[in-house]
């Protein structure tokens, strides 16, 4: 039986559980870019992000039979990606990062001061988004780019739903501070 575009992610997972390589290729084709981008924003290294997606989808191949369908497949993929990205960060002996240290570090290459010279607010905004801490960057990406609900973000990140809401609020507050420091006034706060 051929795999068609109409096959849902859940059907693909069921077939992957049976060892269907074609279903695996279709699932990979659908999700690998978003998984890569999410991973890249966490590990900040293209090579590491590519290794990461191979590991994520290999996990899917191995664990497909255990997928219970309680959440969307895309949510499951992002949760695996996050777990593996944090594991990869821990393994980076050369950088010497542990979890807390990784979360505390902001992107030094994206100094908000630089954004002052940017031509427009949009560019400054992107600079400041890059300058957020990993925790804040992650939640902003999950909500805005990956369009995950409060419940889904809570599942992916492994935090209570109320914490999801407050964390995004404070991420936005931090973003506003970075923008203000960069000379951009948006009328909020």
């Amino acid at each position, binding site marked *: 039986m051929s795999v068609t575009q109409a096959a849902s992610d*859940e059907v693909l997972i*069921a*077939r992957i559980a049976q060892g269907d390589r074609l279903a695996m290729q279709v699932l990979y084709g659908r999700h*690998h870019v978003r998984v890569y*981008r999410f991973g890249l924003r966490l590990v900040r290294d293209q090579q590491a992000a*590519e290794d990461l997606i191979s590991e994520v989808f290999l996990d899917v191949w191995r664990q497909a039979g255990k997928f219970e369908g309680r959440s969307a497949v895309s949510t499951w993929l992002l949760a695996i990606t996050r777990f593996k990205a944090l594991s990869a960060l821990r393994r980076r002996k050369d950088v010497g990062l542990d979890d807390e240290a990784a979360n505390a570090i902001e992107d030094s290459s994206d100094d908000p001061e630089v954004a002052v010279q940017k031509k427009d607010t*949009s560019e400054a905004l992107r600079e400041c988004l890059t300058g957020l801490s990993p925790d804040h960057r992650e939640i902003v990406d999950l909500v805005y*780019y990956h369009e995950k609900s409060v419940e889904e973000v809570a599942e992916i990140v492994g935090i209570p739903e109320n914490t999801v809401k407050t964390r995004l609020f404070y991420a936005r507050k931090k973003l506003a501070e970075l923008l203000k420091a960069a000379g951009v006034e948006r009328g909020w706060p």
Partner: protein
Amino acid sequence: MMALSKKMLEQEPSEIEMLLPWHAAGTLNARDARRVEEALANDPALAKQYAAIRGEYEETIHLNESLGAPSARAMQKLFAAIDAEPARATTSLPLSARISTFFASLSPRALAWSAGLGAIALLLQAGIIGAVLMKTQTATFQTASLSTSSSITRELGAAAAPARALVRFTPEARVGDITALLDSYQASIIGDAKGGMFRLQFDRAMSQDELASLLGRMSREKFVNLAVASP
């Protein structure tokens, strides 16, 4: 509501304020989306904050889209690893997955044909059931001019030349009234209404006098306008 956004950042954010990013992304449920819409309509400061959020939303998408895509190396590495995995013992899919897989494998055209055939099969089935029911109920009749939920007919007996009559019921006569009347006179309706008259058949033969007397009595019934003998 104005006070809602006045306290922004100075105090704990309100629930509505915290939901704004999900509203921008369109991932709120209908109830929360309605709450946010109402709050935005009534609070200009909140609406201003929402405009800033829309900007963040757009730039976050722009930023992520600019990250590019992984090279083919990632896929090659993945499938090389999959090839190196031990062969998997195949088990049958769960029923739900098998059904989903079957329908997912059909093209839209095949699905449309399947649905059409299914509808025809249903119609045929309904026709067959109807025909069978009609065959098994050859000796029963039902009034055509009354909306009935219960039958006002009775099975006919095999008596020879039973007496017959034409009856017109009053407009206010209900099905229950007519049924009770027919029961009391041991009669059944055997023909539909023509000019408002129903053809009745009694359960026995009667002399002309006996029938005239009975029809006279029937004519005086509350729900009968007219009752006359019929050949």
